[in-house]
């Protein structure tokens, strides 16, 4: 339990909001995070995007992504606060650390397997850029097709 959890928070700010208001929401998130012992890892403003469907009659919105570390209590509080802010028309909190770990493990495993196989074939563990690229599947087999029996 002691290890910090990583969450991603994305919120959509109403297109009517000014840049200051967007910055204000960001500071609010930041302050809440600090107060509850979390850390803000990254912020990314995606800018204005068209929405796939209308939310509260808005056709577009400003997307902001925040990557946070902290506990469930913090997320609960953030969720509650974002619900209250009228300018935020939609938000989503997703926990990502577990998935990231799985992805990392898969990649490591694939890397290791590849290296082991290459060594078994008497090649250096890492592919050389000068090696010919892997043949991508089935298009080479067409020659058999016209065979008469």
């Amino acid at each position, binding site marked *: 339990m002691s290890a910090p959890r990583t969450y991603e928070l994305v919120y959509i700010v109403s297109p009517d909001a000014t840049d200051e208001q967007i910055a204000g929401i960001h500071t609010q998130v930041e302050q809440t995070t600090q107060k509850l012992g979390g850390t803000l890892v990254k912020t990314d403003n995606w800018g204005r995007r068209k929405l*796939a469907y209308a939310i509260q009659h808005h056709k577009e919105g400003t997307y902001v992504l925040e990557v946070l570390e902290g506990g469930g209590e913090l997320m609960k509080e953030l969720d509650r606060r974002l619900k209250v802010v009228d300018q935020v028309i*939609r938000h989503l909190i997703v926990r990502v650390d577990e998935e990231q770990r799985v992805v990392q493990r898969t990649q490591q495993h694939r890397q290791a397997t590849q290296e082991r196989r290459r060594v078994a074939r008497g090649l250096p563990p890492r592919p050389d850029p000068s090696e010919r690229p892997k043949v991508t599947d089935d298009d080479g087999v067409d020659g058999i097709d016209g065979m008469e029996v």
Partner: protein
Amino acid sequence: MAMGSKKSGNGRGRGGSSRGGERGAQGGQRRSLFRRRKVCKFCADKIDDINYKDVKLLASFVPERAKVLPRRISGTCALHQRKLRLAITRARVLALLPYLAD
């Protein structure tokens, strides 16, 4: 005339948008066209992380009707289809993808 039944067909693309129409190349087969074996895109391209933010990728699995493209058409493996579904659901919450066709 006996024809070999194993055959790599005439490159039917995945996605199923080109349903029917094509003739078998050599003619005379019982089923007029052989389907190309479908491969899970995520396994083939080694995409481990199916992310809800990757709208371009997800949109290719959400055809016009705005429903999730079924496995039997896309060829996605069960594991990746599950991850895909979750990612699409999340993207829908954020209005990155539609719930309904308009």
